[in-house]
C-alpha cells in the first residue's frame, strides 16, 4: 500500500462555535467535496485528490492529479486512465487519515474492486456507497454493511417493480436459451456492459455448452479480471479463430454498441439477447428489439436498496442518481431524514428524475459511458495482442 499522498498531518482541532457544522460532503461544481479531508469522492471535474468508489467511467474520470482506489480496481483503472495516472491503493478495511478525517474502503459488491467509502470525522460517520448490489457475484467481494450516521445511496432501480429473481433462475434461463440455440445451430449473442456485467455472466454460465467468444472491449476487461485472480472460463476473440469457424454453438458476449455493427455479421444466423435490470419491464424489453431480455443487474433492486439503507443504521440518507424523488419520499414516510444529493453520475441530469425518463435513454447513456471507456481499453488490448 502506498497512500502517502493522502497522509497529512492532523490539523489542530480549532475550537468551534458553530452550532451546526457544515456537512462532511458537499456538492460542488467539481464533485462531492470533503472539506475536512480536502478530497473529492468520484469527482466529475479535474481535482487534486480523487477517492474512487469504482472504475466505471462515470465514477472514475480522467484528469485528476491523484487517485485512491482499492487494489482490485487498480488493473482496470490503469488500463482506463493510462500508465501515467497516479493511483494509490488502500485495501478493504484499512484506514488512511486525510486532514481531519479517517477514510476506509468496504466492499460494495458492484464490480471488481468496487467500494463504499467510509469517512469519519470526530465521531461522525458518513458512507458513500457508490454503486452497489447485495446479490452474490463470483467476480467481486460481497457487499458489506457499514454502520454510519449518514448514508449516501444510489437509486438506479429505486421502484418496487424492480425485484431481482435468484441467480440460479436467471442463469438457468440463459443456459437454456444458449443450449436451445446451440441445438438449432445458431449463435447466441448476448449484449452486456463490457465491464462487470460481462464477467459476472462469464463466471456464472455453464461454459460446457459451447465456445465463448468475446468482443475486444469485453476481452480486455476479462484480462484485467484474470490478472486480479478472478477465475473465468476460456474465451476467445473472433479474430483469433480460423476463418471457417462454426459459430453455431457459440455464446458471443458483446457491448450493446456492437449491435448492428459489421462485427456481428461474421456469426451468421444468430439469436440475440440483452442483459440488464431494465429488462424487467416488458415495454422496455420490446423496445430494445432483441429476442430475449435477461433481468440481470449489478445494481441493487428495491428490496436491496431498502435492506442496505436499514443495515447502515443511518438516520440520514442522501439519495443520488436514479429514482431520487421516489426514494426520498419513501424514506421520509418511513421516518428517516432523507434528501436528494445532486451528482453527475449516469442517470442524473434528466430533470424530472429517472421515473420520468424513458428507460431506454438512461440505458443508452450508461452504455455510452461504458463504451467510451471500453474503447480506450480495446486499443490497449489490440496493442497487447499484437505484441503476443
Amino acid at each position: 500500500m502506498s497512500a502517502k499522498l493522502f497522509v497529512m498531518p492532523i490539523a489542530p482541532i480549532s475550537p468551534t462555535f458553530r452550532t451546526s457544522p457544515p456537512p462532511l460532503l458537499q456538492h460542488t461544481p467539481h464533485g462531492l467535496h470533503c472539506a475536512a479531508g480536502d478530497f473529492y469522492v468520484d469527482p466529475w471535474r479535474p481535482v487534486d485528490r480523487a477517492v474512487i468508489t469504482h472504475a466505471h467511467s462515470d465514477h472514475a474520470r480522467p484528469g485528476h492529479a491523484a487517485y485512491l482506489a482499492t487494489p482490485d480496481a487498480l488493473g482496470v483503472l490503469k488500463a482506463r486512465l493510462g500508465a501515467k495516472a497516479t493511483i494509490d491503493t488502500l485495501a478493504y478495511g484499512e484506514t488512511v487519515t486525510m486532514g481531519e478525517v479517517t477514510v476506509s474502503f468496504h466492499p460494495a459488491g458492484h464490480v471488481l474492486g468496487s467500494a463504499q467509502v467510509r469517512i469519519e470525522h470526530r465521531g461522525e460517520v458518513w458512507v458513500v456507497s457508490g454503486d452497489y448490489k447485495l446479490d452474490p457475484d463470483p467476480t467481486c467481494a460481497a457487499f458489506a454493511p457499514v454502520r454510519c450516521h449518514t448514508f449516501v445511496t444510489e437509486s438506479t432501480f429505486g421502484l418496487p417493480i424492480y425485484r431481482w429473481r435468484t441467480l440460479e433462475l436467471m442463469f438457468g434461463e440463459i443456459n437454456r436459451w444458449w443450449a436451445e440455440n446451440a441445438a438449432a445451430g445458431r449463435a447466441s449473442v448476448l449484449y452486456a456492459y463490457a465491464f462487470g456485467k460481462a464477467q459476472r455472466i462469464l463466471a456464472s454460465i455453464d461454459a460446457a455448452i459451447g465456445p465463448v467468444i468475446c468482443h475486444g472491449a469485453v476481452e480486455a476487461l476479462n484480462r484485467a479480471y484474470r490478472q486480479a485472480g478472478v477465475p473465468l472460463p476460456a474465451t476467445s476473440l473472433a479474430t483469433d479463430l480460423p476463418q471457417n469457424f462454426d459459430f453455431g454453438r457459440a455464446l458471443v458476449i458483446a457491448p450493446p454498441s456492437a449491435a448492428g455493427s459489421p462485427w456481428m455479421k461474421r456469426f451468421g444466423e444468430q439469436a440475440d439477447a440483452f442483459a440488464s435490470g431494465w429488462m424487467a419491464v416488458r415495454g422496455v424489453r420490446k423496445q430494445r428489439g432483441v429476442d430475449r431480455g435477461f433481468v440481470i443487474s449489478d445494481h441493487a433492486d428495491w428490496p436491496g436498496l431498502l435492506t442496505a439503507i436499514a443495515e447502515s443504521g443511518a438516520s440520514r440518507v442522501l439519495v443520488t442518481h436514479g429514482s431520487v424523488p421516489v426514494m426520498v419520499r419513501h424514506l421520509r414516510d418511513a421516518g428517516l431524514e432523507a434528501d436528494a444529493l445532486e451528482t453527475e453520475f449516469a442517470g442524473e441530469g434528466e430533470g424530472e428524475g429517472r421515473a420520468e425518463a424513458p428507460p431506454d435513454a438512461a440505458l443508452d447513456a450508461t452504455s455510452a459511458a461504458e463504451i467510451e471507456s471500453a474503447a480506450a481499453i480495446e486499443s490497449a488490448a489490440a496493442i497487447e495482442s499484437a505484441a503476443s
Partner: protein
Amino acid sequence: MKEFAALFDALDQSTATSDKVAALMAYFRQADPADAAWAVYFLTGNRPKQAVPSKRLHQIAAEVAGLPDWLFAECYDQVGDLAETIALILPPPTSRASIGLSVWVNERLLPLRQLDEAAQRAALIGYWNELAGTERFVFNKLITGGFRVGVSTLLVVRALANVSGVDAKVISHRLAGDWQPTAQNFSALVGEASSAFDISQPYPFFLAHPLPGSPESLGVVDHWQAEWKWDGIRGQLIKRQGQFFLWSRGEELVSAQFPEIIAAAARLPNGVFDGEIVSKRDGRVMPFTALQKRLGRRNPGKKIQADTPVVFVAYDLLEVGGDDWRQRPLHERRAKLHEVVYSMVLGPDERHVIQLSEIVRAPSWPTLAMARQQSRQNGTEGLMLKRRDSAYGVGRTASGKGGGSDWWKWKVDPFTIDCVLMYAQRGHGKRANLYTDYTFGIWKSNKDGHFGVEMPENARQLVTFAKAYSGLTDEEIRQVDAFIRKNTLEKFGPVRTVKAGMVFELAFEGIQRSSRHKSGFAVRFPRITRIRYDKKIEDADTVELIAAMMAQ
C-alpha cells in the same frame, strides 16, 4: 397455466412467424383438450369480460404489496400497464399450483365476477400467491379483459392444422361462428374432416397491387377494365347445393352478420362470386365505421338492418354450376356475371341487395383519370384496373404479362392537413412507456362566437380534430416523447395535455361530420406523414379548410 404462460412468452418474444407456429404446435401437442380449447379461444382474440374493476384491482394489489397509493402510481407510470405493474410489485408466491388453464378460467376467473368485494379480495390474494412471473401477468390480463398476444388467428389455425393434419380451411370454417371453448369442441375442431366442408370452401382471393406510377405504363386503355374501388369488406359469396356461405378476406365466415345478402343470394344460381360488402343507404355509400358495427353483430335485428343496409357489389365470378371459371379471361367471366345478376328476378318490394360492379368506361387514360377524381363523391377510394384477358389469380401474385400484375388499385391521393399536437397518451405493448397516441387540433376562429361579434384573428383557438398513432419512425417517436415530457401542462390519468408547439402533417382518406371531436369532423385512416419542424403552430390549418375539403 404454466404451459399457457410459457406459450405466451414464446409468442411474445418472437417476431418470426415460423417460431410462433412452432411454439403453438408444441403447446397444442401436449395440452389437455380442455386447456387447449381455452387457449384457442383467447389466442383468436376472444376475451372474457373484466372480472374485477381496475380501481379495485389496483387497490387490492397495492395493499398486498404494502405500497401507498402514490408509490403504486409511480410504478404504474414507469411500467405503463396495470396488469404488469401488479405482477411486478406483488411479493413472490409462497405456493405453486400446477392447475391447468381450463380450471383457472372455469373455476377461478369466471366465478370471480359474481363475488362481492370482500370475496374477490380473498380470492385474488390466494390466486396471486400461486402464480409467478408471466403466469401472474397473463392472469391479470385475463382479469382486466385486456389479454392480447402477437399472434393472428391465421397462425393459430395453421398450427392446429399442422398438429392435427386437418386442412386449415376446415379448421377455420369450424372455428367460425360462436365457437365455445370446451374440450369436446376442441376435439371436434381438430378431428376427422366432415363432408359438410367441401361445399363451403372459398377460393383464395386474388389481390391487387397499388399502381406505382401513372397508368400509361399499362399500355392501351382498352385492354383494361376499370371499376370503382369500394371501401368495404371484400367477400366471397358461395351458393352450392342450395347452401350459402359468405366469407370475408380474412377467411372468416360472416354469413350470420349479413343475413340480407344470404337471403338475396337465394335468387342466384349455384356459383361462387367475388365482390365487396358495402353499406349503402338511399344510393349513397355510408362510412366504413357503419359497416364495422355490422361486422361485430351476428344475426342483426330489423332495425340494424334498416339503419345500416348492406349490398354485395359483385365484380367477379369464379365458379358456375360446379365449374371452376378462374382460368377463363376476365371479359368472359364478366359477361357471365352480368347475365347472372341481370337475370335475377326480384319481388316488387325487394331491394337490389346483390348489385353488379359498374364498369367505368373512358376512351383514354386522361379521361379515366378525370373520372377517378369523382371517387370521393362516390364514396370510393379510387379505381381498380383489371386486365381484360387476365385469369383470376391467387393472392398478390405478379402473374401478369412481363412480370407485372393483372390487378392494380389506383387510389386517389389522400387529403393532408397540418395540425397541432394537443394531447398525448402512452402506447401499448412495445410502446407502453412512450407517448405514442396523439390527439391533434386545428384552428377554429371565434368570429361566429356567442355574441355575433367579429373577434380578432388572434382569438381563434385549437380544437381537437383527429387521433393518430402511426407513421413515425422510432427515432421520431423518441423526439416527440421527449417534447411531450418537457411540455406537459396537465395530467388526467394516462392522458397529458401538451403545450401547443409541434406541428404534424396528417394524411387521411374520408371526412364526415361527427361529434366525437370538438372540430365537428372525423376522418378515416388518419396517419402522421411527417413532423413539420418548419412550421409554427400559427401555420396549422383550420376548421374552415376541412369543411371546404369535405365539400369537394
